[in-house]
């Protein structure tokens, strides 16, 4: 009888505490969700790579610079959603519809990931693009000891030794492989693609001689180029790069890039579906302030990126054009891969 009352009291106390907590929760639920506020609080930035990965670093750099330029006062925590090369991050953002305190650092890879999946859980079109910030020019590197002085030499080598030369890179669906496939198709050549999950082993594969060529960004190669171990032989653009003024572009070397999008590896910031124009305006303001800082220019230079500040309908058009021109390449891949 005594123990029973004691038990009852404990149980009642627990129930009261729990209801109290839940009631409190539901009371406050409304305030944070309303999307009208001009300055979103507790902003979190979603990326598709783990700590130390490309997008993770990019997001952290943006947060650092935005704090320095007084665009934001608090730190934005970075959330990793690494599943499926952006698919996970996009699905995560899709689930945060109308919550203005979530933004994602997207890359052009997200478009390809959605194209290469039969029923993608989300695509970039579901989200609200806020701004494109940068484009990473793709360049071609070979070991210094390589006989190939330019990309024409390499293609000639591939003609002489069909299916013998090796290009190294990441997943088969990555942009560097897709544009290489396009060149192979155009020139009637074929070479192998060696996938590594991490960047380090790709460079050592080149240095070791297991691979003969790699398409990547300036930041992938700069140190090795300075140390005299790698050489840049082509730029995937119609303009030469400031960092490598003597390296001819693919167009100069006689390759037709008109079927490829002008920007191959772009990065930007997107919000969840249905983000209000007011909130989009807030983020555009913060980013606009940030890209004018000397720190941003320095970062762009060290990465070999060019600033591309595109917003609004121009950004939507850019994404649509990229999607259209990449679709046939991705589809040719999934046909051959299976």
């Amino acid at each position: 009888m005594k123990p029973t009352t004691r038990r009852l009291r404990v149980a009642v106390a627990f129930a009261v505490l729990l209801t109290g907590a839940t009631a409190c929760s539901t009371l406050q639920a409304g305030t944070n969700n309303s999307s009208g506020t001009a300055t979103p609080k507790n902003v979190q930035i979603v990326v598709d790579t783990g700590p130390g990965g490309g997008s993770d670093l990019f997001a952290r750099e943006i947060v650092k610079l935005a704090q320095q330029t007084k665009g934001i006062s608090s730190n934005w925590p970075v959330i990793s959603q690494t599943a499926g090369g952006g698919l996970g991050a996009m699905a995560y953002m899709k689930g945060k519809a109308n919550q203005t305190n979530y933004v994602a650092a997207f890359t052009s890879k997200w478009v390809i990931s959605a194209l290469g999946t039969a029923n993608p859980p989300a695509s970039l079109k579901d989200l609200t693009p806020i701004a494109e910030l940068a484009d990473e020019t793709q360049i071609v590197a070979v070991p210094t000891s390589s006989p190939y002085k330019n990309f024409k030499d390499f293609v000639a080598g591939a003609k002489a030794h069909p299916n013998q030369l090796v290009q190294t890179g990441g997943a088969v669906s990555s942009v560097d492989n897709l544009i290489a496939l396009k060149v192979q198709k155009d020139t009637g050549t074929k070479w192998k693609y060696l996938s590594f999950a991490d960047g380090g082993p790709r460079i050592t594969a080149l240095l070791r001689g297991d691979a003969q060529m790699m398409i990547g960004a300036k930041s992938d190669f700069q140190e090795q180029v300075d140390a005299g171990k790698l050489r840049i032989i082509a730029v995937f653009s119609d303009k030469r790069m400031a960092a490598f003024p003597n390296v001819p572009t693919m167009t100069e070397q006689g390759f037709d890039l008109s079927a490829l999008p002008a920007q191959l590896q772009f990065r930007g910031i997107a919000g969840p579906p249905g983000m209000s124009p007011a909130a989009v305006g807030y983020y555009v303001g913060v980013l606009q302030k940030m890209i004018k800082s000397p720190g941003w220019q320095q970062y762009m230079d060290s990465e070999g990126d060019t600033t591309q500040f595109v917003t609004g309908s121009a950004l939507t058009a850019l994404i649509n054009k990229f999607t259209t021109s990449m679709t046939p390449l991705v589809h040719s891949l999934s046909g051959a891969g299976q």
Partner: protein
Amino acid sequence: MQRADVVAGTAVAALGAFALVTAVNLAFLSDSGVPGPGFFPTLLSGLLVVLGVVLGVTSLRKRPATETGAEDEAEELTAADSPSGRSRVLRAGAVWVCFLLAVPILTYLGFVPAMAILVALLLFGVERRLDWRSLVVAVVVPVGVYELFVHLLSIPLPTGVIAIGPFGS
């Protein structure tokens, strides 16, 4: 024979067979003839079928008499019908079911309420410790862990579908 091992062998073989059927859609060799995406899954699920059959058949042949004292844990399982063995499994099972129930609660109510319910279920229901100390543990552990992760380390924890309160942001 050891009934548990026969069942386990059958289950492993069945799992292997399922994995093998699923792996059929994946290319065993790629276009260039090197092992493709299906190479490892096919070999491994095949191996599982073989291992499951081997485990099942060898345990069928084994006589209980040949069992030595070293394997008393396994003996206990075969004797799961005995009252002590059954009550042990029931206790572990009860804890597991509480753990399982906590996940949907977590989805709907968020971290702190769900974990408080989990700890309360374990201490009041399974452990039958209906005193104030249990109540303190059921409140302090979830709230403490929440504060540590969310506010000190800024690592988000599930907020639940409806709850975005003091323990939601």
